[in-house]
């Protein structure tokens, strides 16, 4: 059943009185259509059609461009200077008529050549006509905005189910579900979810998806070796000591250094610190092992070399590798994750790259600016041959003017991430946030710290933070503002505007919460960006329909957690292990090992992006998983007492569908499984329950006949039998599960296979 967000409180109140129900679908303060861009038709037209055309003009017609002396000088950045540029262009047209078109199209001599053609020329001419009153601006020329109330969304309960799996890897409890009457009731529950281990795992994966610093895990390249041995003579402190535990100690040391950037992000979120601290932290996080690398001797925390002969278990019990402390290293001007060795090496520099790569990444991650995206316009190689082209030719300056000042703020860090004050000497450009905003002279030895302070004060930091979590939650990037000559520009713009109002709304709440990142996660989950299921009749925007809501393949890591959550058992390459501890060993989990990249995952080395399109190989992985989990893990569930079972609380392993009582029990268990595995709350007579029961019955009937006729064994496959208890203790024969003479266990296996390979189990989705 669809729920609808109504934003107008009066309408809402009236409707609720009429309906007589509670306000279970109104998020507090969520923006509606009234917040969409409005005002004068001409200004709307400028905002939607003309503003982006100016992107090509500003390379010269800006206060730093070659046309700065003319009477047409626009403000930058274009995207956030619409009001100013509207006034500038309007004034110009009122004085000069359609000169902006004739010169822009090079019909009248124009030093910049042809800049307006095709759609951009048409748009500019129309704008001139509107300003001059030659033509009347009508709303038909501007695509109207889509109101929030026109978007159907998941119910609060279904949203909670989805969020629970997403954030914790587990289904919500019955108590939690019962407590949700309106969408705002989710708030405290979501905050609880954001305290769980599952949430931390999800955050680590989400952060690594863009930082890629897990490249240094698994000892592909030892992170401690990245540190300079003169600065950190103890970087390999463990090699001086003889011990059987060295490899574990080394791995734990490496783990902490590789994860410094990601651990910092987690640390800030877990402790409800301002998210800006990920860049401004004046410390590095160490664990008991990496503390020794930095000679940070913290009493009772840093690994004591006297403990070298501890067993591995005792060592890890005493010195938890996940335990972290803040340490300020002498002579290092920490700037949050920017100054960590993992970040600086994952995004290295060269003597000729001059930190431009680092600058591009910083701006992409934290300033909502895709410099490489600016290179989408054609350049002419014959115009960029001079030595000074980088600084003077508009083909180059469009990127370099943005890139260079921030690149220069890395000038005190060498190519390998070592801090050496003045390393780069005189940088090619003055360090700063931009050409205009230069770093003060007294910041010369701690430029990254200065940069971090500036970035986190900039509105774009908050925007990029929202977009990063939007990607983590929905699996897709935020929409980009369409370029003026884009196909279906108005449709794209309408979709972009709809999404952008939620991004802006969330950004403002984020800032108001003193940059608490949990606020972003909570607000996105409650928004139509996450919850959309459909539209009112009359809303026709294919771009929006393909972007809103959830429709993406669950990552291998998240699917691994979800399988465990519903089955109580991981999909493991050690299939015959009954021992739960063995099964918990993540190195054997098939979705984290041999199938990880085949199933669309990343290795952070050669494969650095996820693949979301299901192909034949991935479909076979789903089938293989469902078949293997339908085998031993399904049998295993019957070992436990009914109230301890994950799958079969209402049936026994030999309950046959032969009488009304048994059939009722079987259907009740199927109803439970639909809820437990697929998150579907279905009445007992729902066609889906009937369809699953039919599968059970057909399998049972055929199987029973086959067993009776001798065509099938009355025993389970060896691989599917339970011979010993989950704690590995011996089982007396009566408690072993080897036989299935009535074919009931195998009928349940078929049901489990069916549900585990279902679309709703393997995809994040809003299908209700």
């Amino acid at each position, binding site marked *: 059943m669809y729920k609808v967000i109504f934003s107008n409180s009066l309408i809402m109140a009236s409707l609720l009185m009429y309906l007589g129900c509670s306000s279970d679908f109104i998020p507090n303060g969520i923006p509606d259509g009234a917040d969409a861009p409005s005002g004068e038709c001409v200004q709307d037209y400028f905002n939607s059609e003309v503003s982006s055309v100016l992107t090509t003009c500003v390379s010269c017609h800006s206060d730093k461009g070659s046309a700065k002396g003319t009477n047409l000088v626009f403000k930058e950045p274009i995207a956030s200077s619409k009001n100013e540029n509207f006034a500038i262009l309007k004034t110009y047209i009122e004085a000069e008529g359609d000169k902006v078109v004739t010169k822009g199209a090079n019909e009248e001599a124009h030093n910049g050549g042809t800049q307006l053609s095709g759609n951009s020329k048409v748009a500019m001419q129309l704008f001139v006509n509107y300003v001059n009153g030659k033509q009347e601006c009508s709303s038909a020329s501007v695509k109207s905005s889509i109101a929030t109330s026109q978007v*159907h969304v998941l119910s609060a309960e279904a949203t909670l189910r989805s969020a629970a799996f997403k954030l914790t890897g587990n289904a919500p409890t019955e108590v939690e579900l019962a407590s949700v009457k309106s969408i705002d009731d989710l708030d405290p529950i979501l905050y609880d979810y954001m305290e769980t281990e599952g949430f931390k795992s999800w955050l680590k994966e989400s952060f690594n998806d863009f930082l890629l610093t897990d490249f240094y895990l698994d000892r592909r390249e030892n992170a401690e070796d990245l540190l300079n041995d003169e600065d950190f003579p103890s970087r390999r402190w463990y090699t001086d000591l003889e011990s059987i535990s060295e490899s574990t100690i080394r791995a734990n040391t490496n783990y902490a250094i590789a994860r410094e950037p990601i651990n910092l992000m987690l640390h800030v979120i877990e402790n409800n610190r301002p998210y800006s601290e990920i860049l401004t932290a004046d410390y590095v996080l160490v664990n008991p092992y990496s503390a020794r690398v930095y000679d940070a001797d913290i009493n009772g925390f840093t690994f004591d070399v006297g403990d070298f002969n501890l067993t591995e278990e005792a060592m890890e019990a005493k010195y938890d590798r996940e335990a972290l402390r803040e340490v300020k290293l002498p002579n290092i001007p920490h700037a949050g994750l920017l100054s960590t060795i993992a970040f600086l090496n994952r995004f290295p520099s*060269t*003597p*000729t790259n001059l930190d431009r790569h680092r600058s591009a990444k910083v701006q992409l991650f934290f300033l909502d600016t895709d410099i*490489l*995206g600016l*290179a*989408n316009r054609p*350049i002419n190689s014959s115009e*960029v*041959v001079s030595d000074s082209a980088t600084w003077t030719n508009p083909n180059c300056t469009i990127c370099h003017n943005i890139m260079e000042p921030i690149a220069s703020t890395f000038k005190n860090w060498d190519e390998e991430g070592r801090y050496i004050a003045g390393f780069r000497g005189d940088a090619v450009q003055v360090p700063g946030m931009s050409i205009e905003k230069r770093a003060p002279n007294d910041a010369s030895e701690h430029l990254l710290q200065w940069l971090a302070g500036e970035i986190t004060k900039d509105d774009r930091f908050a925007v990029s933070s929202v977009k990063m979590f939007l990607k983590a939650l929905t699996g897709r990037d935020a929409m980009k503002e369409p370029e003026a000559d*884009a*196909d279906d520009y108005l*449709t794209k713009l309408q979709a972009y505007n709809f999404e952008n109002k939620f991004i802006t709304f969330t950004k403002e709440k984020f800032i108001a919460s003193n940059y608490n990142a949990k606020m972003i996660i909570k607000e996105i989950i409650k928004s139509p960006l996450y919850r959309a299921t*459909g*539209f009112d009749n009359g809303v026709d925007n*294919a*771009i929006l*329909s*393909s972007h*809103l*809501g*959830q*429709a993406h*393949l669950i990552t291998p890591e998240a699917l691994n957690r979800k399988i465990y959550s519903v089955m109580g058992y991981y999909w493991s390459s050690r299939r015959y292990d009954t021992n739960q501890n063995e099964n918990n060993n993540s190195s054997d989990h098939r979705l984290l090992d*041999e*199938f990880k*990249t*085949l199933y669309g995952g990343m290795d952070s080395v*050669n*494969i650095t992006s996820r*693949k979301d*399109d*299901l192909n*034949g*190989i*991935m*479909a*076979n992985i*789903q*089938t*293989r998983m469902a*078949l293997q989990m*339908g085998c031993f893990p399904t049998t295993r569930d019957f070992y436990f007492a009914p109230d301890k079972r994950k799958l079969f609380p209402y049936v026994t392993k030999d309950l046959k569908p032969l009488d009304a009582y048994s059939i009722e029990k079987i259907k009740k268990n199927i109803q439970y499984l639909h809820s437990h595995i697929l998150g579907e709350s279905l009445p007992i007579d729902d066609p889906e329950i009937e369809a*699953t029961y039919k*599968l059970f019955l057909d*399998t049972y009937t055929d*199987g029973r006949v*086959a067993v009776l006729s001798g065509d099938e064994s009355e025993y389970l*496959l060896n691989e*599917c039998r339970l011979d010993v208890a989950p704690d590995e203790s011996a089982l007396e024969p009566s408690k072993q599960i080897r036989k299935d003479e009535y074919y009931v266990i*195998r009928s349940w*296996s*078929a049901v489990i*296979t*069916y549900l585990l390979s279902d*679309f709703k189990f*393997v*995809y994040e989705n*809003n299908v209700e």
Partner: protein
Amino acid sequence: MLRRNFLKYTSAVAAMVLIPTESMAATYTGPLWIFVQASGGWDPTSFCDPKGFLPSEVDGNGNPTNNAMNKSYAADTIATSTTAPAIKYAPLTGSGYDFATFFDTYGKELLIVNGIDTQTNGHSAGKRYVMSGRLAEGYPAISALIAGVSIPSSPLAFITSGGYDETEGVVAGTRLGDTTNTIEELAFSNKLSPTSSSVYETNATRSHVQKAQTARLERLMQKENMAGAKAKLQEYKLAHSGSNELKKLIDNIKPELDNNRVYSQGRLAMAGYKAGLTSSVNISSGSFDTHSQNDTNQARELGRLFKGIDLLKQEAIDQGIAKRVIFVVCSDFGRTPGYNRNNGKDHWSVTSMMFMGPGIRGGRVVGSTNSRHLADKVNPKTLKKDINGIKITYAHVNKAMRKLAGIENEKLLTQYYPLDGTIEDLDIFA
């Protein structure tokens, strides 16, 4: 308007309106397209558009200066293919592979296009432009388009190991990895192991489960309203309906002869092609972004690349498909004329491409550059150098490849992914 109607199905499901919704028995008999993308921007002057250093570019110690086009060989040592006199190449060796082996062995088949104006020197834009024919975002790679038109229902139509491999939903790209054991297990997913006779579910049970899954999927598709989710449901249906085809791939995989990355990735595609399941593959090769030590690093990476193609040519012979494989070898862009202070070369918007295969007249070089690697203009009819002509761009090459693949008039391309109408029709391959 067609474009607008198409958008109702969303860009994520472009081909879904045109392609079958069920997997069909493999029927592909066209050529296998192998796209090898040299990642990072190669230096054409280090192989197929050689310049070398001139006597005037040598310092007092006899060493080439940074102004030289190539420090690693002199202009007067530029080699000529023994089988194709038109083809000149740099006389280098990299990763133990002599470039002469490649250019002499395959010169007759090889078409080189020099002097391509890439119109960008950004990595993302360059990778996108060479493979999609459009500088801006939003178009699928031509490798995906070929697969999307030829056998969209095959689970292995388009195999990719990286590079620009956007599909925009016209076909599902498949990462195969290098492990044939894993593929074997997946091909026989209901067996305990590929060689076991035991199965998890009997035929009768499997049939019941699959029937129930099909019916359930139809019900879900009926209920769904959002275009994005509809596309994913369709994708799920298509992927599962073709999942049995993997067994055919297994039958055609030959033992691996070398761990060369280009070869490893291409041989699985050849097995897929032999089984009628694969029509194109993307292979990403190397670290060509040589801002420092250009000559050493380019030679190393090019040697690996040439050796990989050489091994694949041998594999094609072994598979009996040598005359049905098209190679397209390309990169993001080129590298600057002359060296920076770290003996590296930076990004440069002039480059080359290489082609081999059926429909491609080899032993030729189309296009040219001047002594400082600036692109010469060519006459669009004769393809000869012509100062009043045009510069060859990736869009021209893409247009020619569409024609060579016989997909230029397909509805998917003409309605949804047309190239700019002003792009000239260059008869590059004939």
